[in-house]
């Protein structure tokens, strides 16, 4: 039974692993360019993002679906906040051999961050985390996640105005 806290924990774990993998890969490739402090900043953002995704998906599973129209949900997917739920409600209720009337439940959030600057050079970026849950043959929720880091380095010849 996918109790709310179990789902949240499962998503937390999968998303944290995905974020860690993304950061490790990124750090290996970019540490020379952005430095250890920048990687630490992204790690903090990832930790916060992982928790946010876990809470969001667990909240979606706890949402009451009475009143939703099956034909609309099956055609477009259920939207619970920014969580997307694929459904096959009509097919399941009609007797088609499906595992569940509920398919993949997924969410994607982007977390912008600023690493800092050095003179006219500014470094910022965006961490995108995606998490998804889907029932497997044993009616367990199989979770998956991925993370993506985009870095932006900018340099301007325009002098910054001094703070008043």
């Amino acid at each position, binding site marked *: *039974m*996918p*109790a*709310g806290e179990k*789902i949240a924990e499962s998503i937390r774990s999968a998303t944290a692993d995905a974020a860690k993998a993304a950061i490790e890969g990124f750090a290996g490739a970019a540490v020379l360019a952005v430095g250890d402090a920048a990687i630490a900043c992204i790690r903090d953002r990832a930790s916060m993002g992982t928790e946010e995704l876990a809470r969001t998906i667990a909240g*979606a*599973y*706890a*949402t*009451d*679906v*009475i*009143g*939703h*129209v*099956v*034909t*609309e949900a099956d055609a477009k997917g*259920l939207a*619970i906040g920014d969580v997307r*739920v694929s459904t096959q*409600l*009509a097919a*399941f*209720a*009609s*007797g*088609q*051999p499906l595992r*569940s*009337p*509920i398919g993949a*439940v997924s969410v994607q959030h982007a977390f912008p961050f600023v690493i800092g600057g050095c003179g006219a050079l500014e470094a910022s970026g965006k961490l995108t985390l995606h998490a998804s849950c889907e*029932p497997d043959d044993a*009616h367990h*929720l199989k979770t998956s996640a991925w993370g993506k880091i985009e870095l932006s380095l900018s340099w301007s010849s325009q002098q910054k105005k001094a703070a008043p």
Partner: protein
Amino acid sequence: MTSEPSNPPGGPAVWPVVFGALAIGIAALGFLFVRTSRRKPREKEPQMHQLDIVTPRDASIAVAGRPVTFTAQTQPPSSAANVRWSVATQPGEPGAHGIGATFTYTFGATGVEQVVAHLDDDGLTCDVVLYVFKTPTGGSTLADLLLSEPPPVARTAESLRRWGASASAPRRAS
């Protein structure tokens, strides 16, 4: 001494004009009277009678074990008391029929279910289809639906004869 004949007040030239105007006025009144009297009396427009199932919406999700209340609206409103309900997909089940503006039924299993409302005097019929899910705890969250039992009877909405959630017709002559 000659005296000029005195004219009546207004002068003799005024009288033909006055008589002419009077004649035209009388003719116009006569024309209007004839036209009005020939016009057919306006026929009464037929009064439309209507039956709508207002809740739940067609193709809604319902959960087995939880009562679902169906509500009809009629035109005229006094007909609502005569609405005859039936769960078309559970014909032999106890409680599958009712009369009145509302009807409550509790489905027992996962499946596609049809509830029909009739207004016999006006020959009106409406229906709604519900998708019922039997969940392990009777809950209706996404997590509950995830573990729904499969239906004991395979039936699609397309296999049902549909009337729609709204019907109207002119009142039958009594």
